[in-house]
C-alpha cells in the first residue's frame, strides 16, 4: 500500500512535469526524448 502511494506521488510529479514540457519548446536540459503523441495533441 505504501509502495503504491509512493509510486502514485512519483507518477503525479512525472505527469505534471510532462504536461509542462508539452507546452515548452523542449525539456529544459539537453536531452529530448520522443514526446508521446497524446501530449502533442
Amino acid at each position, binding site marked *: 500500500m505504501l509502495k503504491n502511494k509512493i509510486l502514485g506521488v*512519483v507518477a503525479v510529479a*512525472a505527469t505534471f512535469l*510532462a504536461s509542462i*514540457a508539452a507546452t515548452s*519548446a523542449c525539456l*529544459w536540459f*539537453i*536531452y*529530448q526524448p520522443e514526446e508521446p503523441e497524446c501530449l502533442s495533441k
Partner: protein
Amino acid sequence: MDHLLDRLADTIAVRLQYTEDQRAVVRYGLVALSQTVIIFLLLTVLGLCFGFFPQALAVFFSVVLLRRQEGGAHASSLTGCLILTSFVLTALSVLSRFVFSRIDSAAALILIAVLGAACVLASWKLVPVESPNKPLRDPKKIARLRKNTFLLLGGYLVLAAVLALPKGTLPVSSPSIAAAILSGTVWQTFTLTRPGRWLVEKMDRPFRRLSGS
C-alpha cells in the same frame, strides 16, 4: 539510466493500472524529473561545499527557464545530458563566483550590453529551435515561445545590469550573480547556434558511442 526509467514506468503502469498512453506520459515525465532532480542536487551539493551555491542557482534557473522557451542543441542520451549539463552549469557557476565577479562594474555593464544584444539578435533569428523528437508546428505556440523568450531575455538583462551596478548605487549589488545570470543566458543562446550545436555534438560523442546510437 534509460532502462531504470523504463522499469520504473512499467512498475507504475502495472501497479496503478495505467493505459499505454498514461505509461508513455509518465515515462516522458520521469526523464524531466530525473534530469531536474539530479542536476539540481549536484549543483546544490557542490555549491554548498565550495561556496558558489547562489551563483549555481542563478545559472540553473536562467538556463532552465530560457531553454523551455527557446529549445536548442541536444545530447543523444540521458546520461550524456546529465554529465554535460552538470559539467557546464558547474563550470559557469564557479567562473561566475571566482573569476567573472572580479570584473569592474563599468566593464561588466558593457559586457552585459554587448552580449545581451548578441543574445537578443541570435534569439530573434533562431528561436524556437525544434528537435526531431519534439517538432514545433503550431504557429500560435511558436509565437508564444518567441514572446516569452524576449520577455525573459529582457528581464534577465535588466536584472544582471542592476546587480552589476557599483556598490552603493542601489541597496542590492552582486557582480557574481549578475555574471551567473549573464553566463547562463549566453550559454543557452549559444546552444541555439550552429557552432553551439557542433560543440554539444562533439562533447556528446563519447556518450553516443557508449549508448550505441
